[in-house]
Each structure stands twice: as structure tokens, then as C-alpha cells.
């Protein structure tokens, strides 16, 4: 009897077969696409070797969505494209349309419903981001709120094609950096500035001391005896406020209302097109949390984007532009101060120095 129940319970059924979700045109032309054309920021067409066409309409998404949102997009998909849709790796929605006639009506419907059509071509791409105050215990800032504030300000760049290249912005609410945040054109990262507080008693019950020590990038955690019992102490001289200890040990909270905020990073990329993938580099070490609309962060991003738009050549990513004009000029143009924080002092710091006399004067 118990056995029977067990058998009925579904488990380890594995991934769903994607083939079920492919539209007829896709199935037919799988692996046989010839080229694509971008029609406008909301629309592109992929043309198969046999001439078949597949239209894609892209729509912005906040990623954190309600069941009602899901039903909205399902309705549209049913109405115009046989219920076929997908999400992109940057959380946009894509409607996969076989009949060209349906493209414009679909877009009109979406706009009527208040959704954002765009995100294709030389635009500001949807900001990849994380949980923030909505769901994560280690967050130094909210995620969705910052993203919303920035996207409101940059909205024109999502719907109009007027940048030198695609600009990929990413947000992470702590240094764990859930996402390709460390290699984005512009990255916004939640940042603490005070050492963890140690709750010695909870620590004894909740934390494994060796793994807590091992979690620290700067070896700032040492074993210690507190009230005659094993504990840890933090060397505040060397602690870099990364929060890694808190990730493994709940008794070392690091969030701090007055001192948490955000740092801004620029010039990373992942693609291998032209240049190799590269990390984002520090632009602004710290901007305080300013909910609900984070004006400091919004302005910083806008400043970078404007400088990029004015200065870059067509096709140049943010980092390629900065490499061409040089970092000193980047700081000059944006007006961001260059500080000691910009000079690396971590493990491989010495490899980031200027080993040459090359300099713009």
C-alpha cells in the first residue's frame, strides 16, 4: 500500500522536452536559419535557408511578475502566434510570429496594455538583476527598485535605437553578484561599508568556525575564545566588508542602514566579438541608498551613458570606448573623482598597474 502511494508520487522526471514548445516554423527550420534583420527596436525577422520567415517581437519585463502578467502575455500569444513565446536570457518576453500581418497588431495590443516593446538593436538592454529586499537576506540594497528607477530614466534608450552599441546594465544586491554583473557595460552593486557584527552566542550554535574563517577573502577572521568558549574575531583593519562571512554564518550580520549603498562599475563585456571578455572596472566606489528612487545611482548611470553616447564610435561597447580614450579621460569626462579606492589592492592588484610610460598628458 505504502509502495503504491510512493509509485504515484512523481519525482526526478527531469527537464521538459522543449520540442513540444517549438512553433511549426521553428521546427521546420531548426538549424537552418540563414540570416536575420532588425526591423525596429521591437521587431526582428529571422529568414531560413528556404526563405521561411519568423518574426520576433520583444517586450520588456520586470522579471518579478504576477500570475496576471503571465496570463496577459499568454492571451497575446494565443491571439497572434499560436501561443508560442519565449523569454530571453535577459528576461525579456519574445513573441514568435509566423505571419508578418500579425506583427503590428500584436505590438499595438501590447502598448495598449501598457507593456514596453523594444530592446533589440543598439539599445539599453533590460537590466539583469537579483532579488534585493524583496527576497534576499544578504542584500545591501533593493534590486527591483533601483532597476525600475534607472529604466524609467533610460526608457527612451529601450525603445529607440540611438546608442553606439547595445548597452548591458546589470544589478546585484551584494558581492555574491548573482548574474554576469562583474562583466557588464555598466554594473550596479550593493555594497556594505562596515564590518560584520558578531553575535557570539548564536555563532556557537549556528556556525562552523573553520568554514567561516575560510570564507573570508582577506583572512580577517581568526579563531577566538569568547567567554571561555570557541568563537571568532574579525580584524577590522583588513576586513573589506564583503559579507562572505555572513553568507556562511548567520551570526555575523553586516547590513547597516546608514552605511550600505551601491558602487558603479563600467566597461565589462562577455561576448568574444572583437575583444575578449573582460570584467567591469570601478567607476564610483559608493553612492548611498536613496529609496525609493535612488537619484544618485540614476544620475551616475545617466552620466556614463551620455558620455558613452557622445564619445563612442558606432559599434563600440562601453569598455571598448573607454579603452580607446583612456581611463584618465573617462574620469575627466564624467567628472567622477579618481580615488585610492580605484587602485586595486586585492590578490592580483599588481597586474593592474600601468607598466609603461604610455600616458595621455
Amino acid at each position, binding site marked *: 500500500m505504502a509502495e503504491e502511494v510512493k509509485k504515484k*508520487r512523481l519525482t*526526478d522526471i*527531469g*527537464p*521538459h522536452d*522543449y520540442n*513540444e514548445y*517549438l512553433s511549426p516554423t*521553428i521546427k521546420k527550420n531548426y538549424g537552418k*536559419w540563414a*540570416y*536575420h534583420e532588425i526591423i525596429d527596436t521591437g521587431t526582428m525577422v*529571422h529568414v531560413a535557408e528556404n526563405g521561411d520567415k519568423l518574426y520576433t517581437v520583444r517586450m*520588456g*519585463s*520586470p*522579471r*518579478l*511578475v*504576477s*500570475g496576471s502578467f*503571465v496570463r496577459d*502575455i499568454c*492571451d497575446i500569444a494565443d491571439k497572434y502566434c*499560436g*501561443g508560442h*513565446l*519565449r*523569454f530571453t*536570457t535577459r528576461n525579456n518576453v519574445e513573441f514568435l510570429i509566423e505571419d508578418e500581418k500579425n506583427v503590428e497588431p500584436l505590438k499595438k495590443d501590447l502598448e495598449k496594455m*501598457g*507593456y*514596453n516593446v523594444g530592446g533589440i538593436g543598439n539599445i539599453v538592454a533590460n537590466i539583469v538583476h537579483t532579488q534585493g*529586499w*524583496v*527576497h534576499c*537576506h*544578504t*542584500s545591501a540594497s*533593493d534590486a527591483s*527598485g533601483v532597476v525600475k*528607477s534607472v529604466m524609467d530614466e533610460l526608457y527612451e534608450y*529601450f525603445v529607440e535605437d540611438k546608442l553606439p552599441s547595445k548597452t548591458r546594465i546589470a544589478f546585484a544586491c551584494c*558581492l*555574491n*553578484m548573482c548574474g*554576469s554583473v*562583474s562583466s557588464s557595460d555598466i554594473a550596479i552593486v550593493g555594497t556594505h561599508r562596515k564590518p560584520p557584527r558578531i553575535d557570539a552566542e548564536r555563532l556557537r550554535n549556528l556556525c562552523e568556525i573553520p568554514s567561516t574563517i*575560510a570564507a573570508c577573502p582577506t583572512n580577517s577572521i581568526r579563531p577566538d575564545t569568547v567567554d571561555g568558549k570557541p568563537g571568532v574575531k574579525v580584524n577590522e583593519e583588513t576586513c573589506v566588508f564583503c559579507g562572505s562571512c555572513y*553568507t556562511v554564518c*548567520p551570526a555575523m550580520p553586516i*547590513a547597516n*542602514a546608514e552605511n550600505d549603498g551601491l558602487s558603479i562599475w563600467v566597461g565589462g563585456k562577455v561576448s*568574444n*566579438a*572583437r575583444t575578449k*571578455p573582460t*570584467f567591469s572596472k570601478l567607476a564610483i566606489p559608493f553612492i548611498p541608498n536613496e529609496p*525609493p528612487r535612488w537619484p544618485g545611482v540614476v544620475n551616475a548611470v545617466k552620466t556614463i551613458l551620455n558620455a558613452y553616447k557622445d564619445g563612442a564610435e*558606432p559599434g563600440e561597447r562601453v569598455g571598448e570606448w573607454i579603452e580607446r580614450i583612456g581611463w584618465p579621460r573617462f574620469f575627466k569626462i564624467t567628472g567622477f573623482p579618481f580615488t585610492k579606492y580605484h587602485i586595486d589592492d586585492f590578490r592580483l592588484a599588481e597586474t593592474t598597474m600601468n607598466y609603461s610610460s604610455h600616458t595621455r598628458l
Partner: protein
Amino acid sequence: MGKKHQTPLLDELKKGKWISFVKEIERAAEKSERTEDLLGQVEESYRDKVNHWKHGGMAGVKGYGAGMVGRFSEFPEKYPGIKECHSMRIIPSAGFFYNSDFLRKLADISEKHAGGLLNFHGATGNIQILGMSQAEAEDAFQAIAELGFDLGGSGSDLRTPSCCAGQARCEFANYDTMKICYNLTEEYQDELHRPAFNYKFKLKFSGCANDCVASAARSDLAFIGTWKDKIKINQDEVKNYTKKFNVQKYVLDKCPTKCMWFEGENLVIDDENCVKCMHCINEMPKALRAGDEKGASILIGAKAPLVTGPRMGMMLVPFYDINEDAKNDYEWLKGLISNMWEFWDEYGVSRERIGELIGRVGLNTFLEGVGLEPVPEMVEHPRSNPFIKFTEDED
């Protein structure tokens, strides 16, 4: 029906042209008291400038060590609806292709068993349902399983693999990203559901060097499509492009190895010197196409900054004949992966990603361990310091 909690700060985020997550939470809150409480707590965070979640906590379904992330409110009395507010991770359909039928049913489940809030998708690629309590987990899981979907990775396990749209909707794909993503997810279900690794392990598949799933920055093992033979040139289309924009300046001059030039009106490529970066093909998709001997490069070790600093994937296998291996159910690759996991298991320490392990023990040690030969493609350049460890066997 009035609002349960006043949210003057969050209300500010309903303004503006970009789609508002606050409105989305409110839409869900209309059907869910617990999501009303979520709104309330987030408003408090907006006021206090700190999050109000307890650290971690347990959540899961029977037989699985992964697939749910536990989350508990700091103020369970004030916000009883989110006393438990776990998220459930669901393996997506490869390439994120769906139909409305499935999505509607999933929306229903999210409202029935959780807060009616979802992530499409989490940063690793899972569908996430937010706001679930442990009590509902089993039913939600069964309902999802009935739709033919299973839970994704979390903790020290194989994380849910993910891939770009690839051959389904892209002319640039050099191999079938969705097929291999599906195949390995299926093959390694046990590693995915039951964490037994030192730490997390991620697989991502991009059909070409554009790397639209950011595999080189975010996966321990990244598969990036490439080719061995010559780029195919349609000279007529090249001519069309030269009429449209400055091909010399925007294509040829930006080729990383400057291996293209014009001879008269004809474009010539020194393919031996091409590093398959995709740039020229991106700019002139009608004129240029990758060759026929397609495959993938395998990069290893990408990860986020903690503990030793961020890492990009580094070249491990310059050309993996993935399309051939596909015919054998990816036998060669699975052998390699199993060698890697063994090596990692044996020499890695807890919470050490494979990239950090290689950084610690050295690439040579790793290569020997997994049975690969050193090749110059692995390095940016050979060593410049003279501290060579000569070994007996080579004397």
C-alpha cells in the same frame, strides 16, 4: 478592498514608463494575503534601508536536497503571510521556449500554492515561484511535475544548465545548444537534485562566440560554438554592405587579428589567423557565414567574486567536436565531466569552485588529473617567469 499596508515609498515606483514591479506585486497581492504582507515588509525595508529577512533557513521537498530556497520574515507577527516565503526553482524548457497552455497552468499553481509571484527567470535560468510555505511545497511540486516539469538546482549541486536559443532561432549557432542542455540536465538529474559536490557547478551553452547566455562569465563549464574551416563569403552581399556602411572601418579594422582585407572588390580572409570572434559575421550576416566543420570551445572556471576574485572561463578544449559526440549521446564529454568531478571531489575543499581549485593547484596538475594535453591555445602567452619545475620523467 482597501490596501492592507500603506506603501507610500513603493508607490513612487509605480510612476514612470518602465513596467513596474510594484504594480506586479500589487496585482499578485490582490489575490494573495501573503503577498500583501510582502508589500508591507518591503515598504519597511524602503523606510529602514535594510532588508528584513532572517538568514536562510530550511525548505524542500521529499527526496530532494535542492530546488527550494528557504526564506523567513524577521517580523512573522506583523507579516504572518511571509513568516515563510520560500522560493521554488523549476527547470525551464531549454532555450526558454514555452506555450501559453503551460504558462497559464503554472500561473495558476503559483497563485494556488504560493504568493502568485514568479521570476522569468532566475539568474541561473530557473523559473522561480516566490512566497511558498513548506506545507505547500509537496503539493506544488506534484502539480508542477504533472505538467512535466521538475525542480532545479540549489546549494552545492549541479545547477540547472542553461543555453541560448541556438539553432531554434539563430543562424549563428554552431551546434544544437538546446539538445545538449536538455541531454545533460536529464543525465545529471541526481547531481542536480541531491547536492553532493564541494560547491555549486554550472553549465551553460552558447551557440557562438557572441555568448548570449553569458556562459564565459557565469558557468564553471562554458560551451561556446566555433568552427574549424573557412568563413563562407558571398562576395555580392559583401559589395552590398560596402554600399551601406564603411566596411573597412567598422568590420576589417575591428577584426582582432586583422586577418581580413580587400583585394580589389573582393574580401579575403586569412582563416588560419581568424579567432572565430564572430564580429565580421555579426556585422554582415548576409555576406558571411561560419564554416562547415562546426564544434565548440570549452571554457572552464568562471564565477562570481567571492572568495578569490571574479573569474572568466578559461580555454580548456579549443575544439570539441560536439556535433560528432552528439551522435554518441555526448559520451566523450560525459567522460571528461566525470573526470573533472572526480578531481574536484578529491582535491577541492568545501566551497571551492572548480576554477578556484585550478587556480590553486595549477592548470598542469588539473590537465594531468582529467587527462588532457597542454596546448598553446590554453594560454594568452607562455610563461614569462623562469621558475620552471623540471621533472624527472622529462629529463
